[in-house]
């Protein structure tokens, strides 16, 4: 759940100049929030940004099960000695790293409260867990968070006071169809003869996303699916077959009718 990501080459197509906004936010010392549905490349964007800065990325992926202790730290017993193992929030503050809070709006209220303390203008944290030690953030410390739209399972609205800690807000939606094709190209080889089929798959994905946005379907396919589709084509699948495997089959879990709805979209988009 909590991990420190090492800097490495990351493949991200910055189609809406998000990196320059993040860069400005970093330079003026403000925290940024990226809002967008899953699979739009939010995490890749942040990783790319961190690698450009040459900074270490401390990332937390929030869920209902993320506890305060993941952020702050816990006491442990080591060879008869009680010691305090710092959590990722404390570590990133000390080291002046880039803290990445992924899916922040999936976190529980008590976790958010604790985070709120560190994010306010004082940028400090009182560790009640470690004899009231005060942690002051390194001046280089920066935070980027992402949230999913409320239609996603397990998400809640971010409380207003926490929202206000992130005055730089970026919307990252699914890219236009031609950009999506470009992103697919960056991840896998796209033969000219397959461009048409991939274009249709992207159109299908767009349709399914729209249906999910108005809650007519329960799942919204991400960019990952488009990439997987292209890879399957390269592995020799036919377009229709690949579309069924990548897109339609997932909907079977909500019943056969849901599955057939998506299959009908595939039937009407893909000719022979």
């Amino acid at each position: 759940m909590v991990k420190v990501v090492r800097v490495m080459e990351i493949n991200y197509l910055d189609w809406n100049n998000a990196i320059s906004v993040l860069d400005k936010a970093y330079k003026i010392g403000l925290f940024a929030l990226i809002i967008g549905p899953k699979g739009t490349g939010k995490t890749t964007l942040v990783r790319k940004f961190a690698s450009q800065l040459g900074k270490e990325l401390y990332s937390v992926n929030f869920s209902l099960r993320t506890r305060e202790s993941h952020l702050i730290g816990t006491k442990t017993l080591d060879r008869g000695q009680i010691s305090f193992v710092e959590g990722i929030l404390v570590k990133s503050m000390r080291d002046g790293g880039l803290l990445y809070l992924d899916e922040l709006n999936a976190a529980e209220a008590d976790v958010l409260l604790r985070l709120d303390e560190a994010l306010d203008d004082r940028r400090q944290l009182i560790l009640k867990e470690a004899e009231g030690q005060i942690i002051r953030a390194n001046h280089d410390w920066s935070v980027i968070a992402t949230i999913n739209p409320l239609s996603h399972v397990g998400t809640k609205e971010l409380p207003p006071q926490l929202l206000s800690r992130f005055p730089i807000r970026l919307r990252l939606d699914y890219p236009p169809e031609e950009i999506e094709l470009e992103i697919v190209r960056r991840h896998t080889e796209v033969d000219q003869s397959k461009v048409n089929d991939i274009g249709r798959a992207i159109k299908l994905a767009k349709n399914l996303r729209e249906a999910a946005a108005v809650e007519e379907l329960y799942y919204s396919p991400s960019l990952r699916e488009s990439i997987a589709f292209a890879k399957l084509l390269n592995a020799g699948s036919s377009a229709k077959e690949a579309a069924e495997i990548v897109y339609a089959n997932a909907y079977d879990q909500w019943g056969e009718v849901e599955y057939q709805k998506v299959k009908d979209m595939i039937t009407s988009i893909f000719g022979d």
Partner: protein
Amino acid sequence: MCASSVPLGLSSTSLRNDILLDIATFLSRRWSNNNRAIVILTKDKMPFVRIDKNQIMLPVLNYYLGTHFQQYRQWRVALWFESMRMYFSTKVMSYDHAFGFLLNTLETKRIEILGLQNWEGMVKELIFNEGMSWLSRPLLNSVYGNNKIIEAFSQYFLTGYLKGELFGNDFEKVRKASDYATEIVHDAIKNDYSTDWIERHIPNLVKMLGIDALTSIPIVAPITRVRGLGMNQNDLVKQIEKIVRRKIKATDIDETSREIIEGSDLLEEFETLLKESKRTENKGYESLENLGLSVPETMDIDPSPVYDADLIRRLKAKFRDWRTAWIERHEEAGEEFDPESYVETLPKNFLTDLRLSIKTKVAILLDHSSSIEQGELEYKRATVALCEALDYLSINFTVYAFSTESRQVKCWIIKPPNLKWSVSGSRRLAQIRASGGTPLAEIYGLLLPTTKSFKPEIMITLTDGEPSDFDAVREMVLSYRKMGIHMVALGLGRNLNDAISIGHNLKYLSYERSLAVSRLEDIPKKVISLLHN
């Protein structure tokens, strides 16, 4: 597999209209890229779209010729065409005069070409549809006068050939007009012109055909409703082979035609819908008919009058914090307000997840006796809003209503427990007329078996008056309570005094709680806060 044998085995059961509407709504919204599109089923009327109202009118399946599966395929193509019209056209005129008929015919061609650019997979289905509709088109020899010219034009322009004979001068006229129309359509597509541009050329077309723009066109429905008559499998095969030869550069005409006639891409979808129809019949409400419950069946009802979007929006906004788990507070008095320091003074900044606490199963019974008639529309709007809100809060609920029809008490199922709340629920409610008395005990009796299987934790009865059978009701209420169901009554009054007296009366019926409202639009709020408590 023999082409003709594919669907026949399936034709014993038919598709339920609500299942059809569900998939039609989904498909039309995706195809037309319009999330507000509504599909309305009407008997015996040709497909039509009302662009300004986002409505697509479609006939029921047996409007079309052939087996059930063939009917479904034609119906789906009609849905596609009307969705394309919704997407590409700015105007659709009436088909009953020559001018409108011609404009719509040209538009049909234009949207077909444009639509296929996006929905390439429809090609085979369109060929199948053309083959089927060819069989149901009138023979030109049986049509006379201007109508003959117009029908001939429509056949020749859309398909490239004629059914029957057209002689000398008439044929020349139709051929020239068709060439002209084709040119117009291609120009429109090339230059991205829309319906209005095409409309400007219709007078020329009218002149070329030598007819009057206002000539009335008889509605041409498929030639026969008697299934089987006029429909021969060999004719279909021949017709489809002919179209395939003309339209597709297929290497193997026989094979392609066979595939088109079989329609195996859609067979599975059709079978699933059939299975689903059967499933809802068994587990949903059809079987309940044996228990004396009825399903409002009419599907050509526009649910928009009972769908008060404003009220629903307000209601959802009111209960938003139940879903989002934080609450907005507004200070109305005091010094200059600093939100940060205010938030710090609060003992608890965040709410715990309220939505998790409403795991209750709820059954709702709506009184539709004649006394409701006065405020019927408002009452229906409030109850639809209530259902929308319950659905929004992911509460498991079921809704029944009772009224009297032809002197017989009916208990209607508005929303069965196993189906998601959808527009068909509003349709069902919209068609129930308020009439008759309030035989509550009888209704509770009818509902007993279903309620036993659904096992709601709360049963809420919305009524506006005294039941006709006081003692019996008391007994029934007690027997429900013995099953562990919390029985609650909500009295509906016309004004405050009325509400108070109704609330008072209800107290004597041994309900666990009885409440009353004097404004109908308060119903949803009242019910939901009741559930929360």
